[in-house]
């Protein structure tokens, strides 16, 4: 998609002259026999909002704890601003962490919690109150400064934790599932607040989450992890539109995946034979795929159109029967049974009222999509 040209795009990872803030160099972490982090190499840049996304046990938290200093890499190096972090204990690192449980000190007031780190720092005593006030303003907590953590709500506690970890103006802020304990509505509001604060303070944020929507919303880049490895590191839109593997395609959002064999049909066009008696799926790929290679074709449900009559202008048309309709208010998902009992999902925005919907259960329908709508995945 074309970006408006007048605005420079924030993409330091594409700039070869940009110096990374954090460098993971072949970092491995083992707990006994268990390999939590498996040879990760990645650069993270200043002012980035970097998300580590993956299911629980994928190593994302271990990666973050190594940055904070609570774990040491078994192999490899982690550099912060070009300095090896290994010999530096957690209390001497220029990183701060916002804990999943918030870890607010229950015996201290909101004010003292925020001032806690400042009092251990070089900051002159008389400048601490001003900094705490600034943090309270930033997180809109002025009214709660004198309360203890158990006297405020979950959302407020979350903001105290954020204020406390930002107070020392760390080079890097680590956020461990920062919104996990909030309910959905509050979580969405807080996501925007987080982005706002990140922009205002210019701090580099590294967020660990298992919630793909959260990662997609807040992050400048997302790293999808599985079994201690980074499967794909890219901008949210590329992760969504151009997943590099079935794992990523499946982990992020809803997807239809069809297995088949690819045949080259001109420059970057491929035909995928996926079912007896069905026309091949036409798709494009920049990669060179050998004749007859087994591939997966992935397409997002919202990129599949559904109609009662055969469309003529689409490269791919598949006939099927509506087996299920999920009405979600703003959108509807149609589960359509196609050849061989396979299910393909099509998602349609509900532009008309439900009563005027012209497709219903067991209707014969035509699913269609262009030859650039999906992606061909080799793994």
């Amino acid at each position, binding site marked *: 998609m074309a970006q408006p040209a007048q605005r420079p795009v924030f993409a330091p990872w594409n700039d070869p002259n940009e110096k990374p803030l954090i460098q993971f160099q072949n970092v491995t972490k083992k707990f006994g026999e268990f390999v939590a982090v498996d040879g990760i190499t990645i650069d993270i840049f200043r002012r980035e909002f970097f998300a580590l996304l993956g299911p629980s046990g994928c190593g994302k938290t271990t990666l973050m704890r190594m940055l904070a200093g609570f774990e040491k890499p078994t192999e490899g190096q982690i550099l912060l601003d070009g300095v090896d972090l290994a010999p530096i204990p957690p209390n001497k690192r220029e990183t*701060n*962490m916002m804990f999943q*449980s918030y870890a607010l000190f*229950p015996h201290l007031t909101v004010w003292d919690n925020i001032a806690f780190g400042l009092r251990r720092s070089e900051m002159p005593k008389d400048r601490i109150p001003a900094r705490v006030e600034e943090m309270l303003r930033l997180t809109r907590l002025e009214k709660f400064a004198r309360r203890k953590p158990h006297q405020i709500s979950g959302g407020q506690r979350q903001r105290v934790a954020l204020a406390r970890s930002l107070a020392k103006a760390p080079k890097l802020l680590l956020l461990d599932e920062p919104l996990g304990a909030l309910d959905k509505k509050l979580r969405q509001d807080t996501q925007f607040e987080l982005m706002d604060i990140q922009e205002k303070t210019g701090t580099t944020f590294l967020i660990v989450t298992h919630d793909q929507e959260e990662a997609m919303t807040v992050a400048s880049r997302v790293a999808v992890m599985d079994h201690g490895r980074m499967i794909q590191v890219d901008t949210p839109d590329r992760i969504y539109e151009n997943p590099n593997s079935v794992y990523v395609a499946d982990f992020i959002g809803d997807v239809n995946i069809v297995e088949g064999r690819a045949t080259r049909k001109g420059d970057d066009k491929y035909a995928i034979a996926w079912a007896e008696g069905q026309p091949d799926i036409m798709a494009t790929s920049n990669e060179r795929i050998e004749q007859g290679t087994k591939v997966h074709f992935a397409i997002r449900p919202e990129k599949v159109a559904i109609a009662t009559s055969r469309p003529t202008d689409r490269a791919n048309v598949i006939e099927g029967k509506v087996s299920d309709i999920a009405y979600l208010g703003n959108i509807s998902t149609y589960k359509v049974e196609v050849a061989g009992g396979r299910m393909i999902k099509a998602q349609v925005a509900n532009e008309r009222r439900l009563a005027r919907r012209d497709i219903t259960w067991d209707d014969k329908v035509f699913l269609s999509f262009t030859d650039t709508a999906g992606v061909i995945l080799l793994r």
Partner: protein
Amino acid sequence: MNPRRFFLIATPYLWLLLFFLVPFGIVLKIALSDTAISIPPYTPVLDLAEGWAGVKAFFADLDVENFTFLASDPLYITAYISSLKIALISTFITLLVGYPIAYGMAQAPDEWRPTLMMLVILPFWTSFLIRIYAWIGILSNEGFLNQFLMSTGLIDSPLTILNTNIAVYIGIVYAYLPFMILPIYTALEKLDVSLIEAAEDLGCSRFQAFWLVTFPLSRPGVIAGCFLVFIPAIGEFVIPSLLGGTQTLMIGKTLYDEFFANRDWPVASAVAVVLLLILIIPIVLFQRNEQKQREAGQ
């Protein structure tokens, strides 16, 4: 109020009335009586046969003479002060010994904790009296400790520990250590590890993190432990009489002598009543602390 609730609430009050207030009333009555060579060894005795006049005469005979006697005789005042001192010092030593043990237990791997807990409670399986007697064998001039120290050549002549205040401190610290360890351990065990990590993350050294986070958060346990040691230690009788010497003055021992050696029940009862009044202050403080903790927990 339904009868079930009434019963539930009434039970502890009834218990308190029967087993605390009534006996206390009797002790208080004896404290207000005069000693006599008779059975029971005090007067007046309430004689209901004489009717209302008897009751009147009975109350007319009660006086606070024994309390004024306690205040006038320095022996009792010194005994109270000495008891307070011994109880305070031994509570403090118990805290110094107990805190690191509780801390170590809370840091131990999960699978070890039940065993460690068992080891702390294990001494209770042996009679208290026997355990204190055992210390005589350890601390006496020919005891295990002196034999060991002399065999290693650290000392030439045996140390005199038994029958001194030091032996009393050793005895009290030993006997009440579990009461200190358990509440502190409970407080430390509940502590979220991420709080310590957060403190370190915000720039604390290990020691600072302990002092600024761990210790304040274990304070309720420390306070509970101190009261659990201090309250019984102040009235302790067995330890000072078995391990202490002639110069060891504790109110529990004085009380015992008054009752059994002097057979002066009224004065002994007065000593007991005053001791109770002294103890009520820390107990009330203790209750307040518990109450505050409960409120904070909500």
